[in-house]
């Protein structure tokens, strides 16, 4: 279909908040139920979802800043120990968000690449050797993209075994039917 428009990961990642400084007064930025009292005034700092911030930033209605997830300090922390970072806690959509921010923050591609190349090796190892109590922490720290990657690798491993044991051609129940 039409590429990223329908991509649910793209949509979810664009909801991540980035800090902004408003250049005009805006209504509708409060949380649900605050009704008419939700006007935020110019020069206030407010965290807006990326889809909103990007559009408003283009016409200078806000001044968008890099999210703390990709600040310089954060980048240093990532570089220090990529494999032990609780990426899921940092952001469920770490890589997707970084991709969407791309142009805005200069170092982001580099940060993403080094994080990914380090962690992906461990993911592949876990898929091959199975995971146990020791790897539980790491597996729980994966963000959405990495978790999907792990699932794919594990499925591939399973498929190899199934084929070797002659189970590959078994007629199966349709997955949606219980």
């Amino acid at each position, binding site marked *: *279909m039409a590429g990223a*428009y*329908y*991509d*649910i990961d793209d*949509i*979810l990642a664009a*909801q991540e908040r980035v800090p902004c400084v408003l*250049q*005009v*007064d*805006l*209504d*509708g*930025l*409060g*949380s*649900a139920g605050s009704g008419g009292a939700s006007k935020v005034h110019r020069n206030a700092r407010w965290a807006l*979802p990326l*889809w*909103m911030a990007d*559009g*408003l930033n283009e*016409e200078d*209605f806000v001044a968008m800043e890099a999210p703390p997830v990709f600040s310089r300090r954060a980048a240093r922390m990532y570089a220090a120990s990529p494999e032990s970072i609780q990426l899921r806690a940092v952001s469920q959509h770490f890589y997707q968000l970084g991709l969407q921010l791309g142009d805005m923050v200069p170092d982001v591609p580099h940060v993403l690449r080094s994080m990914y190349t380090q962690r992906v090796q461990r993911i592949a190892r876990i898929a091959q050797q199975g995971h146990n109590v020791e790897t539980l922490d790491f597996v729980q720290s994966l963000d959405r993209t990495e978790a999907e990657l792990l699932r794919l690798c594990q499925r591939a491993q399973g498929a190899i075994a199934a084929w070797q044991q*002659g*189970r*590959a*051609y*078994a*007629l*199966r*129940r*349709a*997955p*949606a*039917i*219980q």
Partner: protein
Amino acid sequence: MLGDEAFRLAKEARDITAGHIPAYNEEQVRLVTQETRYLWARREEMNDRLRVAESQGMTSQLQSQALLGGGGSSSSQVAAKTAAADGGSQTQYENDNGQAKLYGLTVRRNKRCLLAYHQRRMGFVRGLLWSVHLAPSLVPAELLQRLSPEEQGFAREYARLNAAYRDAVEEQLCPADSLDWTASGELPPRDLFVEVRVVRDCGEIVTESGVVNLQPGTQHYLRRSDVEHLLTIGYLEHINPT
């Protein structure tokens, strides 16, 4: 915040897998379409107001240009800003501009979430149909209930269209035989006959070699095409595949 309702739909879309679909959230869809229509109406109102302000600004600008006899910025927005008698209406003008833009962004975001939600559900229904060999009657009622009436209608219509197409092709290609193109394309069938164990009581079925009684716990060696639908819905289990 604006767009939160639509995000809820996006999260429900995320939860759709090959094996599971949540019930169609009609209420949430209604909320989002309602919000969208409301915002669009407000945005149109604001744009009208802004256009009036700009043209008034233009008029004042032209008047002041005539007085000063000089050239000036041609932007009507700048004219509106500079022609404002007090800072208040200039501020209001900027606010309205920003607000209108925000409403427009939200409308587009809502639309995107709505489309993605429905498209993913449709993808699930399509996959489900192919996995039951385009026989909607094989889908358990409990699963059908989670689909909206439109989605159920889509399922029936999709199966019907496929059947019509297949019939047309058969007529041209092989009038004496029947084609089964719902057989898995990725795993071509290996055997004509399969060994199966009965998981749930299927009663009696008619095969080419006569009537077979499929009692739970029994094993049979049957023609694949006769029992494939029962394997699909899990009543039979395929054992010792090669």
